[in-house]
């Protein structure tokens, strides 16, 4: 891996202003980062979780405290580290310091200043783990700030998968400022699945980062379902020759949700590839913003990059912004993006109505079909639940104004 890609830390960081393009469409004050305090941690009652054949290991956090843990003993014996952040080996701590140094505004460095708890997963070299790991973070503390961090380090030629779920019961307004940082050494293959399902009063901020070494294959799958105000950024840095990235994401806007999602992929080495597919649907009075940047540095000839964003607007008054971006600094590349925004295809609706479906039913079936392609790529244990969630999101009655 090259160190050259790490920018020099700005001597003094500032809060992002309105002129910061990334924050142009979302209000920083919605996150109350300066006023909300980190709530006291919940009671520490760690229990061994019953073994579940679906998972290689599980970590359960409630209100910042580790409530349950399980790890396949065979994996532990082979050197897998999977536990709270306090168990992080030196190499993970080093990586954490490096990602903190990448912070470009106070909004991102706030996470490291307020960092409260988290999980670490370290896979030793050449180890292949078949089943996914699960980190499940639940928040019930009212009105406070929660700052979880998940750090992943996969050594050379290892293979593994991790699912991170975060949720909170209804009617507990709070701010979550999370981050997931991933460092993948040469030849590693890793799948990360991110399922955000907070309540509709939560303000969710996320600044995540992944560094891909030589010939790494990284697949990132995300579903952004919950949260009242959501602002996320995932930076993917392709630093080793031949690294390849696939990112898939789905998001919904319901009621008054505001979701501003950004992915930024930077190709910094030759022969790297990235493929991104993001699909969203908005209804009621919600608004989604998708920002997808592909950046190619002069050191990355033979880059092949593609990004696709598709938005479905289900009723008038809902709003979807799409901002795909290309920043290309060398010529031997193949880079493109596509973006479509619209309603359900009328021809398809007509076809289904001629087969006896009602108009409404036909529209719902087509919308569900749009997301099926993404759900098929999600980790096996989550697929059924995700299908159900998509169905609920599309079919539930309109959320009245003012109520979450």
């Amino acid at each position, binding site marked *: 891996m090259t160190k050259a890609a790490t920018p020099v830390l700005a001597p003094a960081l500032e809060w992002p202003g309105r002129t910061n393009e990334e924050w142009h469409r979302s209000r920083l004050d919605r996150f109350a980062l300066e006023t909300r305090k980190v709530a006291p941690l919940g009671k520490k009652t760690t229990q061994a979780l019953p073994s579940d054949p679906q998972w290689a290991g599980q970590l359960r956090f409630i209100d910042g405290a580790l409530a349950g843990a399980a790890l396949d003993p065979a994996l532990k014996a082979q050197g897998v580290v999977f536990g709270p952040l306090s168990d992080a080996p030196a190499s993970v701590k080093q990586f954490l310091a490096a990602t903190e140094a990448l912070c470009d505004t106070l909004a991102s460095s706030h996470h490291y200043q307020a960092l409260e708890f988290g999980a670490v997963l370290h896979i030793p070299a050449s180890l292949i783990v078949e089943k996914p790991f699960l980190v499940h973070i639940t928040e019930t503390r009212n009105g406070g700030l929660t700052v979880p961090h998940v750090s992943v380090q996969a050594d050379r030629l290892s293979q593994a998968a991790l699912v991170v779920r975060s949720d909170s019961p209804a009617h507990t307004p709070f701010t979550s400022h999370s981050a997931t940082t991933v460092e993948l050494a040469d030849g590693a293959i890793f799948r990360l699945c991110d399922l955000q399902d907070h309540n509709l009063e939560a303000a969710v901020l996320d600044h995540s980062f992944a560094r891909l070494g030589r010939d790494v294959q990284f697949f990132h799958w995300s579903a952004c379902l919950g949260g009242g105000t959501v602002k996320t950024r995932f930076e993917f840095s392709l630093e080793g020759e031949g690294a390849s990235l696939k990112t898939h994401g789905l998001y919904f806007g319901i009621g008054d949700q505001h979701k501003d999602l950004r992915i930024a992929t930077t190709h910094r080495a030759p022969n790297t590839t990235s493929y991104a597919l993001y699909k969203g649907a908005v209804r009621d009075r919600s608004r989604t913003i998708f920002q997808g940047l592909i950046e190619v540095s002069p050191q990355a000839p033979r880059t092949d990059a593609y990004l696709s964003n598709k938005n479905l607007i289900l009723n*008038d008054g809902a709003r979807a912004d*799409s901002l795909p971006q290309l920043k290309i600094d060398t*010529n031997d*590349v*193949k880079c493109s993006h*596509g973006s479509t925004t619209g309603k359900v295809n009328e021809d398809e609706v007509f076809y289904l109505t001629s087969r006896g479906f009602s108009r409404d039913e036909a529209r719902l079936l087509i919308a569900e079909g749009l997301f099926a392609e993404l759900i098929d790529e999600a980790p096996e244990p989550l697929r059924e639940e995700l299908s159900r969630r998509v169905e609920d999101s599309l079919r539930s009655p309109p959320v009245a104004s003012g109520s979450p």
Partner: protein
Amino acid sequence: MSNETIPDNLTADNFADGYKYGFSTPEKSLVKSAKGLSEEVVRQISAAKNEPSWMLAYRLKALETFYKMPMPVWGADLSGIDFDEIYYYAKASSESATSWDDVPEDIRNTYDRLGIPEAEKKFLAGVGAQYDSEMVYHNLQKNLTDQGVIFSSPEDAVLNHPDIIRQYFGTVIPHTDNKFAALNTAVWSGGSFIYIPKGVHVDIPLQAYFRVNTKSFGQFERTLIVVDEGAFVHYIEGCTAPVFTKDSLHTAVVEIVALPGARVRYSTIQNWSNNMYNLVTKRAFAYENATVEWVDGNIGSKVTMKYPAIFLMGKGAHGEVMSIAFANKGQEQDTGTKIMHFADDTSSVVTAKSISKSGGISSYRGIIKAAAGLRNIRSKVECDALLLDASAKTNTYPVMDIQSDDVSMEHEASVSKISEEQLLYLMSRGIGEAEASMMIVNGFIDPLVKQLPMEYAVELNRLIELEMEGSVG
């Protein structure tokens, strides 16, 4: 391709950087404002034009706005502009002539070298020629004058058609729109005023040619085109400047009003010298069933920031933008399109192509907006960038802001180099690498070139060939 398409007068002397219009004529201004911007300069410009007081008042209000507004923090680097180092007004001829014989000889020679009088004879219905601040020539075919078509300088229109000016001037682009629109409104001079009466089709194009001849000069032309119900016009604009050691500024404002059922096509081939800051605001309002088309070529200038906009105000209106940008060494072409859908059944198509080489930067910056509650909106945007060498750069920053559910919006962008497969194919047929590359580039810009009148298509192809010189092999 072969040398036969390059004219004889392109000797090594005036071929520096491939720019053929870099010559200058000794400066002989009759009136020239003091260097720098002040209320005094604005009053001086207004007085030189014998303007009514309402126009002076508007200029002074715009000057205040200019002082108040910040420089744009996005886009190209504009730190090289020093507003105090610029001459805001220079008049080289006492009258605007309607015959080339009446244009002062040295100025006429300039236009002869640019080939304007010859083009007028061959394929234009009317020509306007601006030299520094003032229009020196304006002529329109008699049959069009008889039908009520007006083609004059805006100064002339302020005096002779104040009703139309007061109705439309500054309504499409208010002086508060951006800092450079405010600057233009304060110090505007020259440009074109066109009025096409109801139902009149002007079948052959009208043209204006803008020439800067004074060093450290700012040209601030102002164009207003009003096309009445069911009428049609194609307006073409060309521009060049000498190569001076000091940078010049070109800040135009172009307003187009297409009334119900009208169609307007506005074509520009911008070929400023490589020391020109070209910061232009162009916008059109398209009312019910009207069509507005921008055909925009940006070949020259040091920095261009130009985003032709179409506001689709009436049901059934249609907007189209076709653009090509070529960013060579030291150039930044920051261009794009702004389309606002404000009415039902409106549609828009944007095709943007760019070519970069030798460290040149071309950027596409665009926005497509569909306001809430609209029915049947369709929009398609395609941006393609071609990078000719490893140091070339390109950026694409589109925004799709869709607030209505009955919309079909598509955007596609791609970046590539000259395809090895295509090159191999052509070379295996016995075509040299340079010529094969040129053929591929020609194919790349072909959809746009096709939209131009024959003479301009040939000119654009030749300009691109000149820019391509030495880029292969």
